[in-house]
């Protein structure tokens, strides 16, 4: 991993990094990856169940509800008033095309 990778990841994550921080992040990430790469050596048999244990083991597989309208308690005004930019009660963004 090098500075170019850090810049690429920041681009993918849509985060502008200060120049001064790139070296530090690179160093931190190398340290963390060095620690987590120990799982490479773990032998995992290919049989058996895979998937997230916290969901499957307690018996929930899919949690569905009817596709209908249900009332929700929230304040529309509070949501609209927090738009960073708006016009006539609509959220306004920079043009995308």
């Amino acid at each position: 991993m090098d500075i170019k990778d850090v810049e690429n990841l920041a681009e993918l994550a849509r985060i502008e990094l200060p120049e001064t921080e790139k070296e530090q992040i690179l160093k931190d990430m190398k340290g963390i990856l060095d620690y987590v790469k120990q799982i490479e050596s773990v032998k995992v048999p290919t049989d058996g169940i895979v998937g997230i244990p916290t969901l499957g083991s307690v018996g929930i597989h899919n949690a569905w509800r009817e596709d209908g309208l249900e009332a929700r308690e929230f304040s529309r005004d509070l949501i609209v008033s927090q738009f960073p930019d708006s016009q006539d009660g609509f959220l306004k963004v920079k043009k995308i095309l």
Partner: protein
Amino acid sequence: MMIDLKNLTIEKAHASLKNGEYTCLELVEEYLKVIGEKNKELNAYLEVYDDVIRQAEEAEKKFKNGSATKMTGIPIAIKDNILVGGKIVSAGSKILENYRASYDATVVKILKKEGAILLGRTNMDEFAMGSSTQTSYYGVSRNPYDPSRVPGGSSGGSAIAVAADMALTALGTETCGSVRQPSAFCGLVGLKPTYGALSRHGIIAMGNSLDQVSPFGKTVRDVEIVFNTLSLHDPEDSTSVPEDLRNPSRSNLKQKIGVPWHLFEEGVEKTVLENFKQSIEKLASVGFEIVDIKLPYSKYSLATYYIIMPAEVSTNLSRFDGIRYGYSHKGETLEEVYKKSRGEGFGREARRRILLGTYVLSYGYYDAYYNKAVKVRRKIADEIVKAYERVDLIATPTAPTLPFKLGEKLDDPVAMYLSDIFSAPANLSGVPSLALPSGKTSEGLPHSIQFMAPHFAEDSLFQIGKQFEKIKN
């Protein structure tokens, strides 16, 4: 009016409120007084709510009309990542500095219905990312036992609030030890419930497959009361487990405790290990059979966690983009709004974890990191569930160290992450775990032991916890 807050429990307060020894308002005013004296130094609360008095008056009505429950009038502190409708909820981040929640989290809705008094929101590591409450945008918090030391984290503010008598009980959240580790550092009881026991609706997510709302208390009984109040199925959370799928809790205290000694061979402070051994001896002396168990995959818990969690973080935190709410940098293009809002709004730890998550999920690395971690996680969960065929509970130290000094480990992320080495197995496998005080060092710093039980066997934890409270001295 003088109330002995130090020895106050939920049941004692309830009895006093019921028999009119003091009113909800008088109780709350006692806590507000302590907050006024201590919060400046300890920085437990980011905000004390301006409607606390009105809440107390409402609670008093419930006592008058006979509809009061155990939680009515109980002053509780709320971690700053749990939505309280109309109030600012910042998750300790600049990006949500002025964000006001548009609805109540389900756990908050329940507390309000019961008439509990929400005192305010507490400091935390930014987006719950940390083990010391030092990554908050709103300054560090301090350990009430020694203000030059950290309170643990990420739910440090809630822990301090209870430990320093600035609240009777508190809610935090756990993704990997964020309630148990600060409980250890602040001499409290902390419960990480079974994944799916408490609703996550209205909790600002860090790692969805790991997060659980988790209560703090001074006693096991207090934590049990809060847990029982909040442990309800919630259709608003698709991972909330319906009551009929929850295993019946165990009513008889079993006698076998498994200890995975091989996990503590290195990296545990000598005094911590010494204290743990003494606790185990005490348990053995009152009739528990101590069984040496092996959890070979659990050795990789923290490494597994530090792949899965950042992956979920990078996904979850993509919603904070400067468009709909929160901090927004006015840019010329949409891309500039995104990049500058996120670059300036997130702190260093959050940026680091987002990038790490982006990396482990990216093409070419996905199989080696994320996919492998998911498989190892499954093995960890399986071996823990299997261990319960031989033992009833598993015991470990809660954290490998005593509370460390402010500033320590901040420049070494891996050293900081290791604080949660014994926390990770419970979060990865979804089983419940209880941390509780196990004595003090000669300098007066708290020690802690933790127990893990099978899914939805919180009652076993409360039973052993209450028994341990009696024998620990």
